[in-house]
């Protein structure tokens, strides 16, 4: 009897994983086909950096300000694209379909993975454009910056996904998303901005250890809380 139940558990775990991957792939393939989020995010980043370049002119800005601005661009770009994964399901009437196919936890993780892929792509593009065109922005300790981008992306995805699930069920989705996300993301934002400054100033890797610890605990806390409450948001 014990064997049957553990093998059943293993089978369910496999199904769960398959489901998570399938949901991620569905969103990803859909995005490749329609390119809505890619174009929205891409245009946003290009436009914003252009505006920044234009307003800075030949003066430039202090490195600290540039570190902060990078994350401002990322934040607003994320706000323009990370809610899609849930909002489209509601708007198109496929949310109920998805509920019939898979349990809430699989939906959450599938969409978390999708947002993670999206935000990672966003960050790579943003950082590249930023580094290329904004001359005052120089990173001295690359390792700190790399880890910051990785942890920052995961943290962004974590917070943005659960908030996206919430606003998808409300009526004024567009404007509500940044309003709800900002207080939740602020600890993350302050920490990554700090870490970016450390990287720009050429600090040693260990000096950013406090920031990395914060980021990791933030990620763990937000994802744990999200999984726990997700069904209350997703299920009617």
């Amino acid at each position: 009897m014990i064997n049957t139940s553990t093998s059943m558990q293993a089978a369910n775990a496999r199904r769960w994983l398959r489901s998570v991957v399938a949901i991620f792939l569905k969103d990803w393939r859909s995005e490749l086909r329609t390119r809505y989020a890619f174009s929205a995010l891409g245009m946003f980043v290009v436009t914003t950096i252009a505006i920044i370049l234009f307003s800075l002119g030949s003066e430039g800005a202090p490195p600290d300000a540039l570190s902060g601005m990078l994350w401002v661009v990322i934040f607003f770009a994320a706000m323009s694209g990370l809610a899609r994964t849930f909002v489209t399901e509601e708007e198109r009437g496929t949310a109920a379909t998805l509920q019939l196919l898979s349990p809430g936890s699989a939906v959450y993780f599938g969409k978390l993975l999708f947002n993670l892929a999206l935000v990672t792509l966003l960050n790579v593009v943003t950082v590249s454009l930023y580094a290329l065109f904004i001359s005052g922005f120089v990173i001295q300790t690359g390792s700190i910056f790399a880890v910051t981008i990785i942890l920052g992306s995961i943290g962004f995805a974590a917070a943005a996904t659960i908030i996206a699930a919430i606003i998808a069920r409300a009526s004024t989705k567009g404007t509500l998303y940044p309003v709800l996300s900002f207080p939740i993301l602020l600890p993350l934002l302050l920490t990554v901005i700090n870490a970016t400054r450390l990287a720009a100033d050429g600090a040693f890797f260990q000096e950013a250890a406090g920031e990395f610890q914060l980021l990791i605990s933030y990620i763990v806390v937000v994802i744990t809380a999200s999984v726990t409450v997700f069904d209350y948001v997703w299920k009617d």
Partner: protein
Amino acid sequence: MGLRIFLGLWLSAVIIFGFSLPMVAQPQHWYDLPIIPGLAEKARIIFFHVPTAWLSVLAFLSSLFYAVRYLRKKEPIDDIKSASSAGIGFLFCFLATVTGAIWAKFSWGTYWNWDPRQTSIFVLLLIYGAYFALRSAVEVEEKRASLSAVYAIIGGVTMPFFMFIMPRILASLHPEPLLNAQGKVHMNTMMLIVFLASLAGFTALYYWMWSLHVRAERIHYQRSQIHGGASRD
């Protein structure tokens, strides 16, 4: 009725004492308050700023408590209690932010300087604002209650990052003239009495406002059920 009058007198006494007790360098009489180095007369704001800040946190915790309860049992009264706590907490949080900014102006010259505690209370204000923005955007009651409960929980788990972790890691500008690292309290007995009295008075005020609001909402809810579910305005 009697309790209300008592509360009114209590808070009036706190306000009067808070503003009128003399601050002297060497407190001698029972009614003398010590001069806090660097703050002098402006230290009086501690009687009002700290309780409002404390209450905004207490109200948030209360809102969180009833939010969790609502998600478990789905009783409408828990949502009413949660939202009422948040409403009053919002008010007190606004007062705390404003009084904090005034204190900052007197002590450090600028209304705002992004030190962790000032940031924390501001973020709490943003969370309250977002909470009510969310509530006004959902028409179905059960969904409104669930979604705002979930948001309160998400806000609740991210708040500690401000309150406890960041002051440790980042340098703090927040004054600790009264409670320094060695834990010595520079408040003399009279000041402590007025301070604690203010804290108690404001907490009672909060509780009174909250239970009044809950009672009103409950009656409103029950009446709309009898009348066959008229939509709320």
